[in-house]
């Protein structure tokens, strides 16, 4: 007999639906790696034969490698800065009673619901009026803007999980602010910091539309990919590149969410039955 109560008895139909849904989510994307090993310039069935030459060609592709480097630079800087801003913000919001807190937090979260093109265009206008030229720096600024809400949300969840009384107890026992942070706050918040870094990096690395508006002569990787889409013979190369990016993203995000684990979405899960 099942251990599970009547209300939670299993449902075959929904399970099948769920699996189909997951297939629907993943299969279109998985065509990229599939055809990246296909020995043909065209993405069509039937498959022509296995080859790794598109991947090998990536090694000689200097513009691509330059774009990759640019994306890495922007991603690292944006994720670190956004995470730092997120730490300050999350700490301020969860430890201090701030006047107009809801309004402030909502403002910080705004970039989540405003289309990227609007944010990019607005920033472009400001920068051009100020006479600031477009470059990787301006791209980084734009990315910091859209990463901060994610960083704040991730870290707010962590800070809320940390009882204020822990920090108070540490202070009571003699630690000054720096040591309180290092010995109490940091260890608990650290997984959140790591998750935020990974998440922000991924967001920045994959971000296209704002970079499109804010980049100067140095393209980021998505901009490079977009520019290649016009050329049919570059298609398989794009597939290979895309496949690599996808696989790395999968791993990075999976790890970041797993670290978030208990503090994040799973915290809502009430059904913690073994």
């Amino acid at each position: 007999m099942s251990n599970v109560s009547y209300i939670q008895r299993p449902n075959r139909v929904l399970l099948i639906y769920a699996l189909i849904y997951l297939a629907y989510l993943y299969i279109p994307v998985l065509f990229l790696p599939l055809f990246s090993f296909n020995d043909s310039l065209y993405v069509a069935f039937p498959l022509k034969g296995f080859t790794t030459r598109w991947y090998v060609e990536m090694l000689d592709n200097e513009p691509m490698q330059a774009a990759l480097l640019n994306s890495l630079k922007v991603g690292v800087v944006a994720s670190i800065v956004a995470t730092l801003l997120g730490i300050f913000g999350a700490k301020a919001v969860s430890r201090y009673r701030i006047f107009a807190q809801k309004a402030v937090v909502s403002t910080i979260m705004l970039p989540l619901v405003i289309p990227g093109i609007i944010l990019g265009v607005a920033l472009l206008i400001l920068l051009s009026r100020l006479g600031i030229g477009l470059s990787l720096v301006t791209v980084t600024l734009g990315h910091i803007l859209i990463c901060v809400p994610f960083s704040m949300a991730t870290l707010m969840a962590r800070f809320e999980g940390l009882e204020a009384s822990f920090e108070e107890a540490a202070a009571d026992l003699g630690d000054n602010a720096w040591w309180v942070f290092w010995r109490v706050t940091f260890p608990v918040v650290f997984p959140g910091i790591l998750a935020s870094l990974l998440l922000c990096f991924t967001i920045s690395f994959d971000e296209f539309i704002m970079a499109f508006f804010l980049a100067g002569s140095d393209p980021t990787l998505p901009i490079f990919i977009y520019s290649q889409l016009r050329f049919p013979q570059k298609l398989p190369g794009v597939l290979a590149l895309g496949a690599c990016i996808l696989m790395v993203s999968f791993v990075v995000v999976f790890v970041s969410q797993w670290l978030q684990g208990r503090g994040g979405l799973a915290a809502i899960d009430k059904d913690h039955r073994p």
Partner: protein
Amino acid sequence: MRSESLRGYALLSPTLVVMLFSMCAPFALMVLMSFWAQHGFKFDTSFTLANYREALSSPIYKALLFRSLKISGACALATVLISYPMAYYVAFHVHRRKLLWIILMTLPFWTSYLLRVFAWKIVLGYNGVINSGLKVVGLINHPLEFLLYSPTAVVITLAHAWAAFAVLPLYVSLEKIDRSLLEAAADLGDGPALRFLRVTLPLSLPGVMAAMLLIFIPTVGDYVTPALVGGPNGIMIANMIQAEFGKVNNWPMGAALAIAMMVIVALISLVYVWVLRKATEQIG
């Protein structure tokens, strides 16, 4: 208390400064610029409503705006409809490894948007995966032309791209439902279908409405999807805005279009939320 607020703000200040500089000030300037005109590379900063008049009266702009709203609305509806059973399954029928399911559901969303749209381009294309696959299997002789470069293609691609965005709020609102309410409903005589209609659905409705809004607002301004799979019949307002800042080189017009779009979306959202509130008050 005041000093606590001040200390809080001090801590918050770097974040606020960045937001101010990179979002608030640019918006303010964009609003300002929408009242200007541009001649060549010079801006005529005298106040004028010409841009807005054109945005709201020109048939092209109106058509694009309208099409964008329709596509986003359809996408929001479709996404929520197909994602609801998935969220329901994980909330009610997954007892172990919930975290794993949640990650699996949302993972694709965190990967490159550009690549995901591109994936649909190769799937829907004239010689793409679906067409060539169907040909190989022998189901068709000529490729299906309606698949790519149409508003339908845009809706399909958007629905796929934003599915994860719907699944999460739906899951959260379903997970929060007290299971003893369902037991009470069963105890009082309701079978599974009635329990769903009378208890689960009403209680998850706030999540459904939130998910729809959450998808509607950003997709109105989507650029990449219409650009890659929309074709001339499928482009949306964002593509027009991009053109104004690019080839057409009429920045004030672009700013006006952007703001018009945001205002219209905001108005629709407010009306939507207001209608919802009224409707739920009636039921309760």
